[in-house]
């Protein structure tokens, strides 16, 4: 008797109708979306635009070591041409000429659409592309750090919806302690400590007492908002010198910062941007190449299995949640030690939740989370740039962009993104 059970049961056959059908639906959906973008670009940025105006894309700042000449394009023609190209990409998807990498094609279409949008918005004017990218990197910092915090918690099986509260606490504590000590470094460390504390607190609720993790996280958010607002009005408003932390200054990496374009963009920054890059690499290596990572992931995927091979599930989770808290606290210090130079009530304004969306969009992977954070940050930065230029879109609507993008991403991606299997489930040691 032949036993052929060693190969997978019911292997996916060539003509696996269902999978193909759903892939086709997805492809057509992306195709229609892309085609619509192209149409909008053609009509609004092309045909609907005034003729004869040029848009100038500025690629260097005067302070840069290597100057790259500005790129000047005719705005209307750019809109038309790119619109046609994007619409064509959409048509390729809808008709099925392109069948694979549909998301990539959609992404390219979206990027070209944005270029057309920029050309239209900057018609008869100039727009600093380097500034746009630099601003993106700047705004991506708290999102990426928040997403990393979520990554550390969720890979270990604890849903962390309290990133927002941890950011806020980090921001507050950093402002207070840095002002008191007179150096931002103290603020950085204390902000991280505040994050660790809240992480431990989330751990107590989620791991030890098995409170619903979403509720526990929301409690931390409300608690953090309430306490920082109260202390803000009670302490910082009264003693303003306690809300005057020095900011970190940007510095360059010798040699690398002199590279054209990428030099000033990537290698001349405050410590935060460098930390984001270092953390991305460290988390990737740590999670997927080390014993620590293997154990953390096993606890997030199948805690009982981890327990039966002698891994202390609860301790591993506590450590991850506290480490995540530290990273979120670090992200929080960015608000007061880099971004604004002082604490304001509820200054994180939902960034923690956008970071969470970036984590989901980035499929619980450090590199994915970074890319997602950059996408969100780009939409934010674009919105501020457009508000500066003369566009007929009301500023209130531009301000909604990051939130709308987040909803679209969460709605569009969540079904296809696979969370760690034990994410959100408390573990009961027997």
């Amino acid at each position, binding site marked *: 008797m032949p036993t052929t059970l060693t190969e997978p049961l019911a292997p996916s056959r060539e003509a696996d109708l269902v999978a193909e059908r759903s892939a086709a639906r997805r492809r057509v959906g992306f195709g229609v979306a892309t085609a619509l973008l192209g149409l909008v670009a053609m009509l609004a940025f092309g045909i609907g635009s005034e003729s004869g105006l040029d848009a100038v894309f500025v690629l260097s700042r005067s302070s840069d070591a290597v100057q790259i000449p500005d790129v000047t394009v005719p705005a209307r023609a750019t809109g038309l041409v790119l619109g046609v190209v994007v619409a064509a990409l959409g048509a390729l998807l809808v008709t099925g000429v392109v069948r694979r990498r549909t998301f990539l094609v959609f992404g390219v279409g979206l990027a070209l659409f944005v270029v057309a949008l920029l050309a239209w918005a900057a018609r008869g004017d100039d727009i600093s592309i380097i500034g746009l990218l630099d601003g993106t990197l700047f705004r991506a910092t708290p999102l990426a750090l928040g997403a990393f915090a979520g990554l550390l918690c969720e890979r270990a099986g604890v849903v962390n919806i309290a990133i927002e509260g941890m950011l806020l606490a980090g921001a507050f504590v950093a402002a207070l302690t840095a002002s008191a000590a007179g150096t931002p470094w103290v603020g950085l460390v204390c902000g991280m400590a505040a994050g660790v504390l809240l992480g431990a607190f989330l751990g107590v609720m989620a791991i030890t*007492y098995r409170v*619903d993790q979403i509720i526990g996280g929301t*409690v931390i958010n*409300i*608690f953090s908002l309430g306490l920082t607002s*109260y202390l803000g009005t009670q302490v910082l408003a009264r003693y303003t010198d306690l809300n005057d932390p020095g900011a970190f200054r940007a510095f360059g990496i010798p040699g690398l910062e002199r590279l054209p374009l990428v030099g000033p963009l990537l290698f001349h920054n405050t410590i935060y941007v460098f930390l984001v890059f270092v953390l991305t690499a460290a988390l990737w290596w740590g999670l997927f190449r080390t014993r620590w990572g293997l154990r953390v992931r096993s606890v997030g995927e199948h805690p009982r299995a981890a327990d039966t091979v002698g891994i202390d599930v609860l301790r591993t989770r506590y450590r991850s949640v506290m480490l995540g808290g530290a990273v979120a606290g670090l992200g929080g210090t960015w608000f007061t030690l880099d971004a604004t130079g002082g604490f304001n009530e509820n200054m994180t304004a939902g960034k923690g939740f956008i970071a969470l969306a970036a984590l989901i969009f980035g499929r619980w992977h450090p590199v994915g989370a970074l890319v997602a954070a950059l996408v969100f940050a780009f939409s934010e930065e674009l919105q501020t740039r457009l508000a500066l230029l003369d566009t007929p879109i009301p500023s*209130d609507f531009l301000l909604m962009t990051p939130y709308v993008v987040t909803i679209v991403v969460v709605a569009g991606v969540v079904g296809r993104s696979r969370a760690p299997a034990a994410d959100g489930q408390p573990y009961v040691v027997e």
Partner: protein
Amino acid sequence: MTTATEQPPAAPPPAGGDGGDAGAGTGGGRGRAVVARLADLGNALVIPVLALVTALVVGGLVMVFTDPETLDEWGSFLSDPLGALEASWDLVSESYEALWRSSVGTPRGIGRTLVEATPLALAGLSVAFAFRAGLFNIGAAGQLIIGATCAGWVGFTWDLPAPIHLPLAVVAGFLGGAAWGGIAGVLKARTGAHEVITTIMLNYISYRLLDYALRSDAFQPPGRDDLISKPVRESARLPEVSLGEVTVHAGVFVALAAAVAVWWLLERTTTGFRLRAVGANPDAARYAGMSVPAMYALAMVVAGGLAGLAGTSNILGRPSFSLTGGYYSFIGFDAIAVALLGRANPAGVLVSAFLFGALRSGSTGMQAATSTPVDIIVVIQALIILFVAAPALVRSIYRIKAGRGTAQTFTASWGS
């Protein structure tokens, strides 16, 4: 062949296994059931009450450690320990006394508390309703704003006789909130997008929408350029009602009616049963032929509508009548606390809304009488929900043995 067995039909099958309480039969007396109910009620009350007490104590500590004068006293603790303790006690007791006096100590205070409690109760019902269907509605804030905007617009734009105008404005508020909540519900039903994220994002979008509306000619009174709307016409305002010396507006009765309606819907109709079933175990609900996505969408629509009513009662009732920028958002977050403290049950929501209303209405009096700022209320509320959400924490503080109560788990993960 062992598992397939037959035994003499006369012998009863052995009682299945481990249940320590099995075998009592079903004929338990009515009286015993009532006693058990009362005991359950007692159990249900222990945690919220202790949570409140603990929150007040910790809130008192926060007061002490953020009050400069009292801190000065503590600075000289070693030389004068009693002085420090006395100053602390005075500060805390005076603050809470003033809070009590100006919230429920006078008929006027009670009236103010009831009015403050009205939107909290409605928004709390919104969160509680969603809870029962297994959804966590953090979006009450946004739904409330959209509801208030719709009700307000109807209230100051149209000119109709009161018997038509007021109901129309209320319905508009409900529908506005329902539509806004429905977005999150439909997204959850269709794509599995987690309602926590979508509702929070919808909150931020609604703040921007409100700002936009308040800048537009349709809303802004002529000659003003700050973020405020025209006042609602007399014909659309909720009438004042006096019960003895206590004066409230009719919104209070809307809230009471809504609580009864929510209770009836959840406990006495098949739709409510389906909502609860989906909330408690979506898999079994699906196997029993219920449509889980439809229930998610419906739950968010109704929850949104209730939050919309909260905004409506606020804009059509005293003292506001005008929409202002960023004014309502706190209610949405207090609503979560109200729902948790009320254990997602309509009667409990009413009680905890009254409590939170009292905190809020008393806080201004407290700030006037003592130097304790209004914001301490936010800290106390945060502490309350902290302790309510973590019953085990309260139990361990007070060393109470765990009861039979089932843990509330609503959402496991991000999956669809």
